[in-house]
């Protein structure tokens, strides 16, 4: 059994909140990520799904070293990424890249596409100009663009094409893991499928792993092998994608499925039972964080936080119902 490419163990990220400028008031903590465990294997896509405030953005920032964890470890290729320096840090940066949601602000407007895609190579390698150009052409073709576009500027491209350029840049340096943060949400519907198919094709060809962060269940389920459902900084359920769609166990996951838009007018979904909104991460509910909104809440849920455990093969849930 190969080792996981990326592994998060009990990762926490608390942000301090200062109240009041002058008086010494007690500091609060925004518990953005509170005990997250998951792994991503080589060549697979792990989907991360949740609504605003669930911590998926913070999790991606932790993986990208834009923030450091308050507690817990993140391992990449077996090595702890905290405190990476010098050569090792550069290697991590070379092997882990990101594609963001907005295609219009992720490409430097005054750089040619070829230079944008080549930049990671320039930073990490010593390749000659010809070698760079060759690699750029190679990667552009991989994402379905003509190598000739390298001399054009970003504003000459549509949203979907820009995302392809962003993906090309992410792949330039033989990346092993790409964090995709809502990569198709800002694209037109007819283009989304193009990009999704392209991403899947690239995974088959190159064996790169994806951490696919999204809010649309159908999209995430389609491209992911496994899905982790997040709520208020914690993972409440993690399972194989098809298994999760067939048998969602956690009440929140079930709510997400009920809330998901139908694919056909004949699909009659039950009315959404959960009410209210996601509480603030500043003062999360005691015990199981979902209990105030949970239709199956029991007295135990308010007192004791459930531990995520395996309930079916490769299917873990954090809920007292199981």
């Amino acid at each position, binding site marked *: 059994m190969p080792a996981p490419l990326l592994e998060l163990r009990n990762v926490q990220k608390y942000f301090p909140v200062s109240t009041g400028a002058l008086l010494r008031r007690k500091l609060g903590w925004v518990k953005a990520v509170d005990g997250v465990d998951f792994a991503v294997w080589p060549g697979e896509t792990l989907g991360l799904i949740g609504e605003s405030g669930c911590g998926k953005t913070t999790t991606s920032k932790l993986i990208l070293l834009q923030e450091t964890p308050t507690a817990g470890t993140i391992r990449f290729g077996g090595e702890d990424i905290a405190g990476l320096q010098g050569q090792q840090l550069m290697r991590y940066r070379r092997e882990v890249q*990101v594609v963001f949601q907005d295609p219009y602000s992720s490409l430097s407007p005054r750089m040619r596409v070829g230079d944008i895609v080549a930049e990671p190579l320039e930073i990490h390698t010593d390749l000659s100009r010809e070698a760079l150009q060759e690699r750029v052409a190679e990667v552009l073709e991989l994402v379905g663009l003509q190598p000739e576009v390298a001399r054009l500027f970003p504003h000459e491209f549509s949203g979907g094409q820009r995302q392809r350029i962003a993906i090309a840049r992410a792949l330039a340096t033989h990346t092993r893991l790409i964090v995709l943060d809502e990569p198709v949400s800002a694209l037109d519907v007819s283009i989304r499928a193009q990009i999704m198919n392209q991403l899947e094709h690239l995974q088959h060809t190159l064996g790169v792993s994806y951490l696919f962060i999204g809010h649309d269940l159908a999209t995430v389920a389609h491209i992911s092998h496994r899905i982790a459902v997040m709520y208020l900084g914690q993972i409440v359920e993690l399972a194989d994608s098809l298994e999760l769609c067939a048998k969602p166990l956690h009440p929140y996951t079930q709510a997400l499925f009920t809330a998901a838009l139908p694919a056909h007018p004949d699909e009659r979904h039950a009315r959404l039972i959960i009410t209210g909104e996601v509480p603030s991460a500043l003062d999360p509910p005691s015990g199981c964080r979902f209990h105030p909104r949970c239709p199956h809440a029991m007295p135990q849920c308010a007192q004791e936080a459930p531990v995520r455990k395996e309930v079916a093969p490769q299917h873990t849930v954090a809920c007292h119902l199981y």
Partner: protein
Amino acid sequence: MLPLAILVPFILIALGADFIAPYDPTEPIPGAKIFEPPFWMQGGSMHALLGTDFQSRDVLSRLIFGARVSLIVGVTGTIVAGSIGTALGILAGYLGGWVDQVIMRITDAWLALPGLVFAIFLATMVGPSMWNIVIILGLVFWTRYARVIRGEVLSLREREYVKLAEIAGASRTRVILRHILPNVMNSTMVLASLTIGVVIIAEASLSFLGVGVPPPEPAWGSMLSDGRSMLMVGDWWLTVFPGLGILLVVLATQLLGDWLRVRLDPQLRNL
């Protein structure tokens, strides 16, 4: 394109001064009288088209060479100011922290100095010469760049493509040179074209006060100063022509700067 219609002739004249000007601007015209009026007035003649000044030097020639001085000082002074200001603005905005604080406090302190007075002070200290003036004006006007550019960099810094470069492992130097600088150049250029006019007026003021470009080198400002006393007796051509020159060039640069601002800002362009 009105601004260009005004500026291009001025630039050409300034460049070709040696060939266009009928006389040496620092020497009196042989055989001419002092304070001759322009040719279309009584007492004027064709050999001094716009008249002569108190040393019977040709006003037209002095005007032409003065254009060169004004434009050179204006442009290079702006370049110096822009370079200092943009560099400091970028460093303050991108590096943040104490670098930002230090630079901003320096900027604030510098702004507290009254510009022209400070320029005069410096000019009297280092002695007048064209290049000294250029540097002095650069030192006076850099602050407006620093403030504006810093603000832009603060917002640029959060753009995704900058973050992406950082995530990809780019060094700070690389991010500044490849991502930040090219994207603030628009603002710098707009500011520059708007500043040229101000610098030209500043130079004219310094020359007017006698601490600018030293005589007998012609400068529009000193021409204004020399001719001022003769206004009372009606010898208007000594001041009106250089004054018109300043007016037209500054107007043109302001219009150009405004046009550039709209042209270069993609959001305003479609209005």
